[in-house]
């Protein structure tokens, strides 16, 4: 990476420090700007009628009575809306063979999941709109629901899409080496298991919401958006509503959690935009919690038949698996529902050295809510396949789980290198992270504690995971496949007349602290107090073009663009100052808002004074000098498809063999995300991620019956981790800077979610090992634990 490497030649003022986020201050005083807070003049509400069936033909829709109801302005069916939109298809060219039919915002002739929108009432209030929904009379002809992923592939299964010969959306096979032959060796111990990973969902505390407004004279559509990728949505709205892209403005202010849920294209949101255009007035749609559960994307839902072969010394010979994943009736647009399976095929076993790998992924249509990318896409499954099988192998051959890891982890001095699946790695530190983990968790003491408790009939377990996390993706993730998703991001920084910096960036803020780290980087690199940096993100009308915040890319990509822009502006300001001061630019520096002499630190002119000369009294400047007090830089990863983060984590659990309840006593995470810009923000990202991983491991599951009805679509029934169940989480770091940028930052937001489930499953199986049983299904509910124990 070329660039201003001198940024880190001196001690930093802000980068690397736990500075509190400035924008959290107003949130603590109730002054957030969330979408549902918006009330515009003449605003009306879109209220959706959704299919109560998982699969049904729509015979007729009678809206006559509903049209007469109080407050109703308009009612649209799926066919009414379809006239105003080009359909969309969730496929990408770099996932060859992936198929999915054209999709419209609302169901047309057939509803294919419980919750699919079928009609929409536009009304003066949400409450009156819900009254009117009850007056719409729809005649459905129920069709057989395809719910079980494996049954869906049977030749006997009903077809969800008549134009296809089966319910298979995509299949990918990977073969490296010769697994079957290698595992047949006399010295190889082969272990086979079936692992199951339940469907779960993001449960953002703020439900999905949008307010769309249309300005007829300008043909401008404004969408206030609770989402992660404003420019992606700008493109999509323009394309599918046949508008000029520049006439679509997408604005994301505060967002009440996203976790990947809010980076997709939802039919109800597209329909809301269409209605705003048709009615030429603002329209609000805010999902209620039931709508969220049955329409926000779900994730995971995998059945994996897996085998691992090891030698007696613990070395891995090879890993093989066949993954079946149910994605709902369509592949989600535009990121597709095949990426999670693809990630599992790419990432399984990634921390380890082995020669033979055979993986098959089957992506299957079913009549449930659509599945797509949620925090740590594919990672919890990939890490659990390799790490839970590795620890099972250790138990079988009588080896310590730490020793078997050390035997197989890629050495820290082996980089750059490739995984068995061809993933290119650099700047990773698996051994250093594991060593640090062992140090902070005091492994030996936990082992003796375990022994003591076992004597008393108390079953405690310790489990580990070594993980990689895909971060800072290059164009190889989506752009290459034709998706309108930028891999590069931009930052603009401007010096105002008072000497303050105004930053705008295309990465977005959903609570991670994006705006805060942009402030830290700009203030540090440029040389002003952090209080003098104002940040704007989320508005396509004002920020540079870029991808937004997903795939743990905000700090690594957005942060690097910010660093480069701040450095460029500093050079521009110093060249202007050199003329004003009649000095050489290379002898000057900027510190605490003043241009200073580099040698002595003597203050020569304040930034405010310099800017006032440029803006107000240009007559004092030479005529051939036109200073630019604004700079923009963009950045994309070019050297690698992804910049991987790695880490090591451990869980300490206690299993109550009478109730099946699992208590997590403590959790440790060591993470190498490269340069840590704000330690407190990173640590809390890790903790929050771990807790979502705990949710997936122990509690969270979208439970469906055989008819495709979600059985627990309420906050009371779907178990989100609560404070009283959560352990203390100790976080530590190894910092191996990525060489792909000057900043050296990798992503950090998803590792906890990706790694924690495997560590917890390992800890539970470690606890259960004296009882000669194990559990291979997440979430590990009390019932499943008791079944594993043979007690029910």
């Amino acid at each position, binding site marked *: 990476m070329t660039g201003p490497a001198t940024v880190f030649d001196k001690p930093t003022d802000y980068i690397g420090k736990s500075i*509190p*986020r400035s924008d*959290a*201050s107003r*949130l*603590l*005083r*109730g*002054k*957030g700007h*969330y979408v*549902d*807070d918006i*009330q515009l003049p003449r605003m009306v509400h879109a209220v959706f009628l959704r299919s109560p069936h998982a699969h049904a033909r729509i015979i007729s829709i009678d809206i006559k009575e509903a049209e007469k109801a*109080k407050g109703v302005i308009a009612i649209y069916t799926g066919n009414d809306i379809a006239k105003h939109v080009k359909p969309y298809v969730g496929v990408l060219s770099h996932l060859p063979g992936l198929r999915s039919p054209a999709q419209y915002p609302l169901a047309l002739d057939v509803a294919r999941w419980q919750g699919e929108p079928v009609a929409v009432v536009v009304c003066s209030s949400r*409450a*009156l709109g819900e009254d009117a929904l009850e007056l719409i009379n729809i005649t459905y002809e129920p069709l057989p629901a395809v719910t079980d992923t494996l049954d869906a592939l049977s030749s006997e299964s009903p077809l969800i899409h008549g134009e296809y010969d089966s319910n298979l959306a995509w299949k990918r096979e990977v073969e490296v080496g010769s697994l079957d032959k290698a595992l047949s060796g006399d010295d190889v111990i082969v272990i086979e298991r079936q692992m199951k990973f339940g469907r779960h969902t*993001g*449960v*953002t*505390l*703020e*439900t999905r919401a949008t307010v769309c407004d249309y300005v007829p004279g300008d043909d401008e559509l404004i969408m206030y958006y609770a989402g992660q990728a404003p420019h992606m949505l700008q493109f999509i709205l323009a394309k599918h509503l046949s508008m000029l892209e520049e006439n679509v403005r997408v604005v994301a202010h*505060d*967002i*009440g*959690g*996203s*976790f990947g849920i809010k980076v997709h294209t939802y039919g109800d949101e597209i329909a809301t935009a269409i209605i705003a255009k048709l009615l030429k007035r603002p329209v609000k749609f805010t999902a*209620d*919690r039931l709508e969220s559960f049955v329409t926000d994307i779900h994730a995971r839902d995998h059945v994996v038949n897996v085998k691992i072969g090891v030698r007696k010394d613990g070395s891995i010979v090879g890993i093989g698996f066949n993954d079946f994943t149910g994605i709902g009736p369509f592949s989600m647009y535009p990121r597709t529902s095949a990426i999670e399976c693809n990630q599992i095929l790419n990432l399984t076993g990634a921390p380890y050295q082995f020669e033979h790998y055979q993986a098959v992924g089957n992506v299957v249509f079913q009549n449930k809510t659509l599945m797509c990318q949620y925090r740590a896409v594919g990672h919890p499954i990939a890490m659990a396949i390799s790490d839970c099988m590795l620890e099972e192998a250790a138990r079988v051959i009588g080896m310590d789980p730490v020793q078997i890891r050390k035997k197989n982890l890629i050495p820290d001095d082996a980089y750059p290198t490739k995984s068995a699946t061809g993933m290119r790695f650099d700047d990773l530190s698996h051994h250093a992270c594991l060593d640090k983990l062992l140090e902070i968790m005091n492994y030996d003491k936990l082992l003796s504690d375990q022994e003591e408790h076992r004597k008393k009939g108390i079953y405690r377990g310790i489990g580990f995971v070594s993980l990689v996390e895909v971060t800072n993706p290059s164009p190889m993730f989506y752009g290459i496949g034709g998706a309108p998703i930028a891999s590069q991001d931009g930052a603009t920084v401007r010096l105002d007349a008072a000497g303050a910096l105004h930053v705008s960036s295309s990465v977005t803020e*959903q*609570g*991670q*602290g994006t705006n805060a780290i942009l402030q830290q980087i700009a203030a540090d690199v440029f040389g002003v107090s952090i209080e003098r940096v104002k940040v704007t993100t989320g508005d396509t009308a004002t920020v540079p073009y870029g991808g937004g915040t997903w795939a743990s890319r905000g700090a690594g990509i957005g942060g690097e663009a910010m660093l480069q822009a701040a450095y460029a502006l500093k050079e521009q300001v110093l060249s202007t100052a050199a003329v004003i001061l009649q000095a050489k630019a290379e002898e000057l520096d900027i510190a605490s808002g003043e241009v200073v002499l580099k040698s002595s630190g003597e203050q020569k002119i304040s930034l405010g004074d310099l800017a006032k000369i440029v803006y107000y009294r240009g007559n004092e400047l030479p005529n051939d000098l036109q200073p630019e007090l604004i700079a923009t830089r963009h950045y994309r990863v070019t050297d690698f498809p992804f910049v991987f983060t790695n880490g090591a984590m451990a869980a300490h659990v206690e299993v109550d063999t009478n109730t099946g309840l699992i208590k997590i006593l403590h959790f440790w995470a060591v993470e190498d995300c490269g340069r840590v810009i704000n330690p*407190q*923000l990173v640590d*809390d990202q890790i*903790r*929050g*991620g*771990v*807790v*979502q991983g705990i949710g997936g491991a122990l509690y969270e599951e979208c439970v469906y019956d055989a008819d495709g009805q979600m059985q627990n679509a*309420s*906050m*009371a029934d779907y178990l*989100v981790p*609560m*404070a*009283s*169940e*959560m352990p*203390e*989480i100790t976080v530590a770091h190894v910092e191996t800077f990525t060489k792909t940028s000057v900043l050296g930052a990798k992503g950090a937001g998803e590792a906890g979610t990706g790694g924690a489930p495997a560590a917890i499953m390992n800890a539970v199986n470690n606890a259960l090992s004296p009882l000669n049983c194990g559990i291979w299904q997440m979430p590990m509910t009390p019932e499943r634990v008791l079944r594993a124990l043979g007690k029910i």
Partner: protein
Amino acid sequence: MMKTAQITLTINGEKHIEDVPVRMNLADFIRTKIGLTGTHVGCEHGVCGACTLFLDGVTIRSCLTLAVQADGSEITTIEGYETDKNASDLIKNFHTRNALQCGYCTPGMLASSIEYIEQGNPADRELVKQHISGNYCRCTGYQAIVDAICTTIEERQN
């Protein structure tokens, strides 16, 4: 037939006389009629805790309370915690300890925290966790929130 009723109540020290639909819940009333959008609605069935606020000094779920039930009451919302609940230290500790990320659970989390502290409870992490278990936070993992509450209690004791 949808009926309305007139209610009189005080919100953060300010008196309001409003006609409201009798079926409107208190959270919607405060957000849409009064315009105080700091109170958030996360589930509308009393589980997530985001809409928690003070009614006559006691925390309640404003999504499970009808606006008409609040007739004659004194309400304090997040917009009033700094001044009406003297919670500037708690707010400062939430800020410095990063005890919020997206900020959506924050109004309810602050309400439950203030209640815990006002009741004279100790800086005991397990007790704090139990007390805030009616408030879901999807971002932080709760540890920072517990830190901020315990720090506030310890600072007040000193």
